């Protein structure tokens, strides 16, 4: 698509479309609850009292603003551009996910919904949802693929400790996409009192916009912090992209700053050529999944294919429609980062800076390292360090043949 975009902040349009992407591709029974949610959300997003409430929780409960940290030793070792880390890993619950769940839980409360449902893959969004439900006294039901429940026992237990009911999903591939299907079915069946907190910038309108709005605090803060700490904007942004919520959170405030290059790092798994990956933008094609038109990974019959990534949080066969739009307009570039590259970056960051990054975020660090090598030392590359890696130590140990 060759499309001249003057103002990226003008998207989506009132139908939730980002160019060709987005929209509301859902069953008729979901149109009414979506309309109810849109009405509530579009009133609240300009409501000073709501925004003050949100800001207060982001500050005192989540721990915002998160700092920008200059990874000097890592940058020196690479010998190129300076790598800066936006430390979303320091948020309460250890990732950017809570920015969104706090926001949506507040919307749920304003709408008088007492029951919250969510889908989760690795369990991070489930934990972030269970957390805010405990905080606001809401009933919480989390759908999780049976395969993921087996892989992520600690997060399952964390959710239970927080009072959530974790429901195993045994249909399809029994992973994130099936959990999302099941959560949609729950919502269709229990529309009246239930609020569905989607964890990424996908799904039907208004979710891609609403989740972006709640996460875009990351980029808004970063834009101010860059001026304060470095006197200018960064030369490049890098973030990992599964569904794409942390990435759009960092990118959005910078979309109209045309001198800032933007890179999204998708999970290339064992390599794009092997077919065992989760790189929807790099290797997928436009289609319709989970309520929106976007790039999807599917076979020639249109069946959604199973994905692979060492990081469960990137293991999703679709991607947020705004990323599809940014790819087609050329505003952002999307690249694949393999499991091995992400693991190498994980270790490098751990040893040079004393930071255990989430495996998801390690994909972004890996691409930032590649990029920094090609740039002079006065350039600034800002990475969204979207989550901390404590949750991944078992995965990493197992991969490296270590029995904990």
């Amino acid at each position: 698509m060759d499309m001249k975009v003057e103002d990226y902040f003008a998207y989506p349009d009132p139908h939730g479309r980002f160019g060709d992407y987005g929209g509301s591709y859902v069953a008729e029974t979901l149109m009414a609850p979506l309309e109810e949610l849109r009405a509530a959300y579009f009133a609240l997003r300009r409501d000073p009292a709501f925004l003050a409430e949100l800001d207060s929780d982001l500050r005192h409960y989540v721990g915002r603003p998160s700092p920008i940290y200059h990874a000097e030793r890592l940058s020196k070792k690479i010998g190129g551009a300076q790598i800066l880390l936006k430390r979303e890993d320091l948020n309460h619950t250890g990732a950017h996910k809570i920015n969104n769940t706090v926001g949506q839980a507040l919307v749920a409360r304003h709408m008088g919904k007492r029951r919250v449902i969510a889908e989760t893959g690795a369990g991070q969004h489930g934990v972030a949802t269970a957390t805010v439900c405990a905080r606001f006294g809401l009933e919480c039901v989390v759908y999780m693929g049976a395969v993921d429940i087996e892989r992520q026992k600690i997060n399952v237990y964390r959710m239970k400790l927080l009072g959530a009911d974790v429901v195993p999903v045994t249909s399809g591939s029994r992973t994130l996409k099936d959990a999302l299907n099941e959560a949609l079915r729950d919502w269709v069946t229990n529309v009246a009192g239930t609020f569905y907190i989607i964890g990424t910038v996908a799904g039907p309108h208004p979710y891609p916009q609403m989740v972006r709005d709640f996460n875009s605090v990351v980029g808004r803060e970063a834009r101010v912090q860059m001026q304060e700490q470095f006197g200018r904007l960064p030369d490049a942004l890098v973030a990992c992209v599964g569904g794409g919520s942390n990435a759009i959170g960092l990118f959005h405030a910078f979309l109209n700053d045309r001198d800032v290059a933007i890179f999204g790092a998708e999970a290339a798994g064992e390599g794009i050529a092997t077919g065992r990956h989760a790189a929807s933008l790099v290797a997928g094609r436009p289609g319709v999944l989970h309520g929106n038109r976007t790039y999807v990974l599917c076979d020639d019959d249109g069946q959604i294919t199973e994905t692979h990534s060492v990081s469960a949080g990137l293991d999703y066969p679709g991607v947020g429609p705004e990323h599809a739009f940014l790819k087609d307009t050329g505003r952002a570039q999307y690249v694949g980062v393999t499991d091995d590259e992400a693991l190498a970056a994980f270790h490098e960051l751990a040893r040079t800076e004393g930071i255990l990054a989430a495996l998801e975020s390690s994909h972004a660090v890996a691409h930032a390292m590649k990029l920094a090598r090609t740039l002079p030392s006065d350039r600034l590359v800002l990475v969204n360090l979207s989550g901390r890696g404590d949750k991944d130590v078992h995965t990493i140990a197992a991969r490296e043949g270590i029995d904990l």
Partner: protein
Amino acid sequence: MNRIDARFAALRAAGRTGLIPFVTAGDPSADATVAIMHALVDAGADLVELGVPFSDPMADGPVIQHANERALARGVGLARVLAYVREFRARDATTPVVLMGYLNPIEIHGSGRFADEAKDAGADGVLLVDCPIEEIQTTAPLAAAGLARVLLAAPTTAPARLAAICAAAEGFLYYVSFAGITGADRLSMDDVRARVAGIKRSAKTPVAVGFGVRDAASAAAIGTFADAVVIGSALVDRLAASKDAADACRRAGEFLAPIRAALDARAESHVA
């Protein structure tokens, strides 16, 4: 006149309620589908809805989800579904066939190419579960090829949207009798009756009612006010344990015949 309109006109003339069974293509076996379609027609089906298997059937309950998974495991996708329709059409030139499924397989196949192939195979309409009226421009090639775009309405559909759906409906309008997934058990007959009466006043097409119709009694009750009754999950469930294609056809006939009889008994008593 196309086959759907012709069939509903004939039903109306005869004072009968239409019976629309749904089966997932490729289930309970890849070689049984066409035979099951014929068996359903023999047992009194007026129109056959054929489900196009999809990996992520988000609006369907467990029975049809699992039927989708089994069909896909047998390699039955869109190309095979079109072949089934063509084979069915070779022996049955009059019973309308509506394909029911999700957008992605059709988009990946190419909407225009799909529309031409489906029409050529002998399909009459397409119902896309994840394509509400707001996104109907997506399916313009289907209408251009002469396929009826069957739309859904639900208990939660707001009046303004319902008016737009009634105005845009092609073939027939499919009223989802309750808010939920296919096959769940939450039918309140008085609610359904009141809503359908309202829809029939503004829809330019006949109104079929489905979701949660399980047996002759619930079908006959709906038949008192709907133009047609759709029956899906209960039938798919009945077919799932079939030993072979012949057994599946026998089960299909045994399942549908009493429903047909119940609908017709009501029609006759009404005429009398």
